[in-house]
């Protein structure tokens, strides 16, 4: 690090910073402003400031239900990712180098595959004549096919698949900082592997687990492709509602208000959770 009183770093970072300002910050402010405008059906945008869009969001059962459904979905997906992602991250650290390389491709590789392709796979698996139904009927667990496409269960399964790599990554990162000797010490003192996991490993990786939860929750709440394809119009979430307001009903101010509300709720939850984590983290280690 150089501590020089010069303008070089500012010149170096100006192009990138200005691009983000112009293409992210300015548009966000414009959208926030737009959310206070109104637009009668078929009419032009009226730029008189009004709170009517937000009035709809807090007062209209239709929108309240959509928000409730979205955040319940995000919470369930976070729960599923927590349940399966944490043990998988632990397994990754215990594999030999060769197996780990293969496992990383299998576990994290899907992140690089288009989300449309991954969701298409789930649409095929979950269909009425899909593989899951056929398998369950073949082993006699089902008498007739269940509707998993356009269902909440199907949506949570598919979205968990899309987002669980983020949980694995986050927990894995904190596991790598872990000193393996502490585990061995506990083992040599007679602790069972379950005890080692519960008393030695878990407490040290809690921050990684919580930040993984935050990432998954935020991404789930804003996810578009998977809810749009798996849940469709039957189970609308906030993102698919925003899409409809913008591209089908052409009510941009309403769509902007929904987007602003979604963003504020997600940011508020993230900030609160972060503060909570920091407080807890200090208590644990002081």
């Amino acid at each position: 690090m150089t501590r020089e009183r010069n303008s070089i770093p500012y010149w170096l970072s100006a192009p990138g910073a200005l691009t983000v300002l112009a293409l992210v910050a300015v548009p966000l402010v414009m959208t926030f402003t737009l959310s206070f405008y109104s637009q009668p059906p078929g009419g032009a945008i009226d730029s008189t400031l009004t709170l009517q869009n937000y009035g709809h969001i807090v007062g209209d059962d239709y929108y309240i239900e959509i928000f409730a459904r979205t955040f319940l979905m995000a919470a369930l997906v976070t729960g599923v990712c927590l349940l399966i992602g944490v043990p998988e991250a632990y397994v990754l650290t215990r594999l030999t180098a060769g197996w780990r390389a293969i496992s990383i491709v299998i576990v994290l590789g899907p992140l690089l595959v288009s989300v449309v392709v991954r969701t298409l796979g789930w649409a095929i698996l979950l269909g009425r004549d899909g593989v899951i139904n056929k398998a369950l009927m073949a082993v006699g667990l089902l008498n007739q096919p269940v509707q998993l496409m356009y269902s909440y269960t199907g949506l949570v399964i598919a979205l968990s698949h899309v987002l669980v790599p983020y949980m694995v990554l986050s927990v894995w990162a904190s596991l790598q900082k872990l000193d393996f000797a502490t585990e061995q010490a506990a083992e040599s003192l007679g602790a069972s592997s379950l005890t080692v996991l519960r008393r030695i490993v878990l407490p040290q990786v809690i921050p990684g687990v919580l930040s993984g939860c935050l990432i998954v929750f935020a991404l789930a709440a804003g996810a578009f492709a998977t809810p749009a394809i798996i849940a469709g119009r039957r189970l609308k979430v906030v993102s698919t509602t925003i899409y409809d307001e913008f591209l089908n009903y052409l009510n941009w101010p309403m769509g902007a208000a929904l987007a602003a509300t979604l963003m504020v709720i997600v940011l508020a939850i993230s900030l609160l959770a972060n503060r909570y984590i920091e407080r807890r983290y200090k208590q644990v280690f002081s």
Partner: protein
Amino acid sequence: MTRLPRPLLAFHVLFAAFMLAPLVIVVLVAFTDKGYISMPFDGASLRWFNEILKRQDFIDAFYRSVVLAATSATLAVVLALPAGMAIAWYQFRGREILVGLLLSPLMVPQIVLGIAILRFLSQMGAAGTMTGLILAHAAIVMPYVLRLVVAAATGFDRSVAQAAETLGASPWTVFARIQLPLILPGIAGGWLLAFITSFDELTLTVFIASPSTQTLPVKLYAYIANTIDPLLASISTMLILLTLVLMLLLERFYGLDRVLGGKS
């Protein structure tokens, strides 16, 4: 490393199966000889791969996606490389704010970014244009490049550059002969990650692409909304194959775990 307890091993196998299931099913369906979604076990053929060649609209969308991804990834490198060097090598007022600003596209839900950029571009009269798409994609993939550049640049000893300076090398020579080669793996990894991210992007692009600038993911999404047939599976299979190739390249340049973990 010690042996893995049996229940954990079983869990690992199930988890891997869960991760692979949707991709494997897509590849299998692509080889069916039926006109609808079915397994290839009672009749396999390549007819759905031949079908791709007849769909000029999908081929056009593919090339458009490649051009968009390559251009926006390159632009993102051009913008993020100097910023990354500034962040890694200089301590200056507002550094934290700069990092926050440059990473902010990752913090905002993509759906919100999508409508925000749509609103912005339509005010500028650039909605639906390729230029608009390239700029928007460059802005959202820049954080990926930045993270890898900063990680690569932080990793090396600055005294090497200072030694060259002392020996009379010009700032340009120091950059071109010392600094750039040392952070090149980070740049290559960042470019590839940016390329893949832009190529796959749907949520934002679905808002700002016009019918004449539809990318492949947008085209696939629009198609799925109407019907799901084996053509989707064969195109998806090609995409999975392409991703595998890019993944191998990433592994070679930078290491997959480092790229995805975003750390050195």
